[in-house]
């Protein structure tokens, strides 16, 4: 060890043999440390998440109903997933919902996060809290508020628009308008969630980077493209996955607003899972459908990771 290294300990950057992570001490101590950190979460997740998931997988190969003795049916449930027209329709509906919801929710959240992060905006605390309110309101209650707005006969929005001569009609029962309306309500309900995550990510970005960019003569848009967006890549990767998972599992708001109608045009996969598990008492089929959804989501996320994950540092490296 040279005097230089001894003298300048704080600036020592170790070589990065393992992708930036440093090895720990002895082998036993290393294992014990890792286990110590992971143990509580692993025990809980193992018992209450992993084990039920495996149970569900087992159930998906049976004709279980929750009562009596289930019998093995092999792949029959899975075959039904891909041949039942109602299920296929719900897959299409879910895909449509995801395609509409994910980009809109993320875009709205990002734009508002940027606005709220801007130092020139007054009353930021107020706006931040106000925009977060839809998220903390419970779903059933939000559904009431929206149906109060959108009811074609006694709805508030219809009433106000009529004064200006616009007739809104029955948006929730119109086959073409029902899905966009449901997506709108979902975006309204969840954008605050993603907005706050973006805010946390934005405030992580050191101001020195902006200062340096400004010294280089970058304008607002360039600063966004060259500083903000790259530094947000971790956050963005996270939000996209989370928003996509939420979109693919859409259930509550649709159940309350349209019940899957009109003509099952807003019925999603999870609604089918709920219907077959809790209403038709066909737990085996519900589990199979849930697993198909899981695998599809996993594949989609992997694609997303591979496509977007190259940019920026450390997404899953």
């Amino acid at each position, binding site marked *: 060890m040279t005097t230089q290294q001894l003298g300048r300990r704080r600036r020592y950057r170790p070589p990065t043999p393992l992708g*930036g992570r440093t090895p720990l001490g002895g082998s036993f101590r290393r294992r014990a440390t890792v286990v110590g950190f992971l143990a509580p979460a692993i025990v809980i*997740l193992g018992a209450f*998440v992993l*084990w039920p998931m495996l149970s569900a997988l087992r159930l998906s190969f049976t004709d279980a109903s929750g009562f009596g003795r289930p019998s093995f049916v092999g792949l029959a449930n899975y075959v039904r997933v891909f041949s039942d027209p109602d299920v296929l329709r719900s897959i299409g509906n879910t895909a449509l919902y995801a395609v509409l919801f994910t980009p809109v929710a993320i875009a709205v959240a990002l734009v508002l996060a940027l606005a709220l992060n801007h130092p020139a905006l007054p009353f930021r605390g107020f706006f931040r809290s*106000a925009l977060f309110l839809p998220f903390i309101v419970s779903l059933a209650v939000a559904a009431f508020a929206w149906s109060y707005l959108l009811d074609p006969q006694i709805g508030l929005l219809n009433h106000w628009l009529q004064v200006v001569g616009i007739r809104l009609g029955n948006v929730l029962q119109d086959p073409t308008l029902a899905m966009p309306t449901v997506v709108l309500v979902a975006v309204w309900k969840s954008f605050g969630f993603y907005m706050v995550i973006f805010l946390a990510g934005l405030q992580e970005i050191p101001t020195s980077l902006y200062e340096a960019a400004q010294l280089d003569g970058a304008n607002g848009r360039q600063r966004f493209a060259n500083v903000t967006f790259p530094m947000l890549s971790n956050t963005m990767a996270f939000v996209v996955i*989370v928003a996509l998972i939420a979109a693919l599992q859409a259930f509550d708001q649709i159940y309350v607003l349209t019940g899957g109608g009109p003509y099952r045009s807003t019925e999603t996969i999870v609604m089918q899972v709920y219907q077959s*598990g809790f209403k038709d008492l066909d737990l085996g089929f*519900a589990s199979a459908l849930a697993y198909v959804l899981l695998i599809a989501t996993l594949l989609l996320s992997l694609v997303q990771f591979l496509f977007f994950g190259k940019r920026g540092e450390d997404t899953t490296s």
Partner: protein
Amino acid sequence: MTALARPVAAARSRTAARRPPSSRWIGFVAVLVVTAAVLLPVAIIVLTAFKPASEVNAYPPTLFPHTWTLDNFRAIFTQLPFARLILNSFAFAGGVTAFALAFDALAAYALARLDFRGSKVLLIVIIASLMIPFQATLIPIYQLVSDLGWVNTFAGLIAPRAADAFGIFFLRQFFVSLPRDLDNAARIDGASEWRIFRSIILPNAVPALLTLGIFTFVNNWNDLLWPLVFTTDQDMGTITSGLTLLTGPGGIIPQGVMMAGALIAVLPLAVMFLLVQRRFIESVASTGLK
């Protein structure tokens, strides 16, 4: 750094002064309009709580009540053991948040900073567990908790949520983006991982921890299916599960009363968020490189 700071600050203020005030005004108005639109449904919820039953479904519909009344609030406390439900909600959401923050942070640290074989696989498994809908695992979870003898207890209500995949994933992403120089330096100095976790990583992760804390609390406070299915004893329920029992004549939900209950349910969350979001502003200065 300080030598550069003054000219930079001067440059920034000059740039700021040069930006025309009108674009800032447009931005402000835009945010104001969007906020008003977003708040409209919330306003409906708040105002309906003060409307008498005859006005709730009246035609023509109104935003503001003609007659303001506190009847709905009185009704909510007489129709349900509402005070008890509020306490239960605090216990449930608070308990889950406390445990989840602790356990998730520990696991996230291991996944972000400790190198071990299988960490990537573990992360993928954890993320994958987010992708199965709760409706499919509800019954196995219920059976498991029932076998443990925990039905209708707080232990059973909280345990399945005491660590969650979302929180681990969220914190892991955050920890990964913290600069390594901070903890590498400490590691070279011989500090233990626990020490690094406690003294370096956690203080720098305050915005993320607050964020996750709020999310976890709100999501569990508003959760319906799990407390509904799990608590068969009416006194053990939460606000959301309790509100489902609200009915008026013929099973038609008394909307005014329900909104009153919802308003009371939202207040602690709003207050909590108001207090916490200030910390976001304060903690800007403490993150990042100095």
